[in-house]
């Protein structure tokens, strides 16, 4: 019984790991958020522009972000990504958009609504609006937008309509109020009398679709500063699906190759390495999932690369183990010594990799950041699994009498070799 115990412990532990990884990995992979390049969509980088009179402030950017969020919501897109980059840029990512052109044109619109008198004086603007609704006029069958002003706007509008009605006779061109959107005249209605209730109607749209789009823009508000589309990428859904399938395939093949290599090179410890990789993958994906990170093509490349690097920790430990065994240490002593001597080196290596990843994350943007995050996270996790899980499992295995044969560790059982004359 006492001989069987370590073996039983090992078997139970491996079973537990297999179960966790077997259930966890597919679940996590299924629930990962996919980036634009994997499921198609629109990526737009907006550049807010400073004018000679006005430099872009953080408040402007906050307002811009708010307006964009509302516009994107109007488009009915699930999970839009809107984030600020630097001091004057905004990234907008819309996944799975059916009509990218429409989305981009909505994003790029200034939507500056102005009511101007005949002498060019701006009397009311989009800021004074409370609501804007498009509808079809039942009498004329023409599309129109009903505006509702806020209290301040209501007062301004009442004042100017009253002033115009009192100053100019009926039919005078001076009694018109021009309604401009982005500097373009939409309608130029005649003021029949004072309008005290804060309601107005705009006509002059080609169809209802246009009217409702403009109403949506007006509801969202005008852009606080002029913007320019600095970068724009549209990925069709076919390309996205294609990339996803290819990535899956590459990941599978890459992982299998690494596993085979480890088995061929290190035998039993190779098996330990494969189990460590499973646990490693589980941890990394869980963290990414918890961070709500998005999978992109470069991100997947970074993750896979980190797997290739993660096994490096195992390789360093196993090579040292071989040496220690060659020098004639007992299995247990060799394992302890191997870890003790390898950890500082692994730590140094990983610190430098993480350093590079951090700088990349700091200076990079967009997809490059995803790559850096995955790589850095992967390297850090691999260090933790190497010094905890791999060590634990290797010790557990070495407790099992059956696995104490040094041939399992790739070392020839040649007594003449022991102790090796290597003096180090």
């Amino acid at each position, binding site marked *: 019984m006492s001989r069987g115990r370590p073996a039983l412990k090992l078997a139970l532990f491996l079973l537990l790991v297999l179960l966790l990884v077997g259930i966890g990995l597919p679940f996590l992979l299924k629930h990962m958020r996919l980036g634009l*390049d994997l499921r198609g969509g629109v990526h737009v*980088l907006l*550049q807010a522009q400073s004018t000679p009179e006005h430099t872009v402030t953080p408040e402007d950017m906050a307002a811009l972000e708010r307006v964009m969020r509302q516009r994107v919501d109007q488009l009915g897109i699930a999970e839009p990504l809107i984030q600020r980059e630097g001091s004057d840029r905004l990234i907008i990512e819309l996944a799975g958009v059916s009509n*990218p*052109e429409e989305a*981009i044109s909505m994003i790029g619109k200034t939507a500056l609504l102005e009511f101007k008198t005949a002498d060019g004086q701006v009397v009311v603007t989009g800021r004074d609006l409370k609501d804007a609704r498009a509808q079809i006029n039942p009498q004329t069958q023409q599309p129109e937008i009903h505006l509702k002003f806020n209290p301040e706007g209501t007062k301004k509008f009442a004042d100017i309509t009253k002033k115009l009605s009192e100053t100019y006779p009926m039919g005078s061109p001076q009694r018109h109020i021009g309604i401009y959107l982005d500097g373009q005249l939409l309608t130029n209605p005649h003021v029949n009398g004072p309008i005290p209730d804060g309601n107005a109607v705009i006509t002059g749209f080609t169809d209802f679709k246009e009217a409702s789009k403009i109403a949506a823009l007006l509801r969202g508000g005008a852009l606080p500063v002029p913007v320019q*589309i*600095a*970068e*724009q*990428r*549209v*990925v*069709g859904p*076919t*390309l996205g699906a*294609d*990339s996803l399938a*290819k*990535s899956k395939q*590459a990941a599978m*093949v*890459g992982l299998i*190759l*690494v596993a085979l290599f*480890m088995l061929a090179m290190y035998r039993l410890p190779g098996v330990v390495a494969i189990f460590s990789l499973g646990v490693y993958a589980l941890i990394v994906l869980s963290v990414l999932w918890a961070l709500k990170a998005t999978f992109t*093509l*470069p991100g*997947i*490349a970074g993750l*896979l*690369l980190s*797997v*290739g*690097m993660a*096994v*490096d920790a195992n*390789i*360093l430990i196993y*090579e040292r183990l071989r*040496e220690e065994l060659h020098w004639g240490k007992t299995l247990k002593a060799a394992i302890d010594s191997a870890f003790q001597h390898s950890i*500082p080196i692994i730590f*140094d*290596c990983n610190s*430098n*990799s993480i*350093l*590079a*990843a951090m*700088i*990349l994350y700091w*200076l*990079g943007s967009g997809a*490059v950041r995803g*790559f*850096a995050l995955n*790589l850095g996270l992967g390297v850090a996790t691999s260090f933790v699994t190497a010094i905890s899980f791999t060590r634990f499992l290797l010790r557990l295995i070495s407790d099992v009498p059956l696995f104490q044969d040094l041939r399992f560790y790739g070392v020839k059982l040649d007594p003449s070799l022991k102790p090796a004359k*290597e*003096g*180090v």
Partner: protein
Amino acid sequence: MYFDFVGHRKWWYLLSLIILLPGLIALAINRPPLNFGIDFIGGNILEIRFEQPVPVEKLREALGEMDLGHVSIQAAGDQNFLIRTKELDRDKVNQVIGALQRLGQAEVVRVDHVGAVIGYELIVKTVIALAITLAMMILYITIRYAGEYLAGISAIASLLYDVLVVVGFFALFRWEVDSTFLAALLTVVGYAVHDTLIIFGRVKENLHLVKKEGFAEVVNKSINQTLRRSINTVVTVVLVLLSLFFLGGESTRNLVLAMLIGTVFGCYSSIFNASQLWVDLHLLFREQEKEVARPAKAKAR
């Protein structure tokens, strides 16, 4: 198996130079030095997939009438086309798409537009990122090696060499450099230093254990002892990169290619540049300080 690496170091320096030279010459001669993608210089990429095969001449003809400046059309099969132009505004892009769709049923697979400002920033960022990374690494290694800054300098020189080889390859073969190139270079730098640290770590360990051997001999022994590690760690990464290169998505291919070259030559450079340089720097600066005049030439056993 015991090989005299250190004794032949003059030859390794020569070999390193031979590897590097074509790339450097390409960098010096080519204008622009690298084949910068639209991420850097600004421009548009349009990828379109026709339902029926369309001859590329038809596309060229249709686009030729539009005054787009230089247009590059790259065919992938007879239905897929990648069209690169200078920076175009939205109306112009729509005109282009319209013109193409007149040639047959087509799906727009991808439209990329990048302004030139972004590109300039990318170049500045790449240089800054590399400089900061390398500087921090010298600092790190110097601290970890108890003020042995010669080790740090040797490691960084080897990394710089590695970066130059990657850039040189891209210059020589005119592979496109896009925004992920920065990621590739920094990853290469972060990874290539592993092999150097593995060797240097062993040197440090051996120096503590054996006092009677010369420095060059200790380095040579350390390289030999860690050779399997150096190769095997790189093999696993190369296996992953190869499968990504051959099976992975199109858009990360250049990223993977840069990392592949950087990883392989990073390993090479750790053994044949970094370690050898440390020996030479050590002989130059440290041995003079000692009174014992030791023959500077390393000897194989």
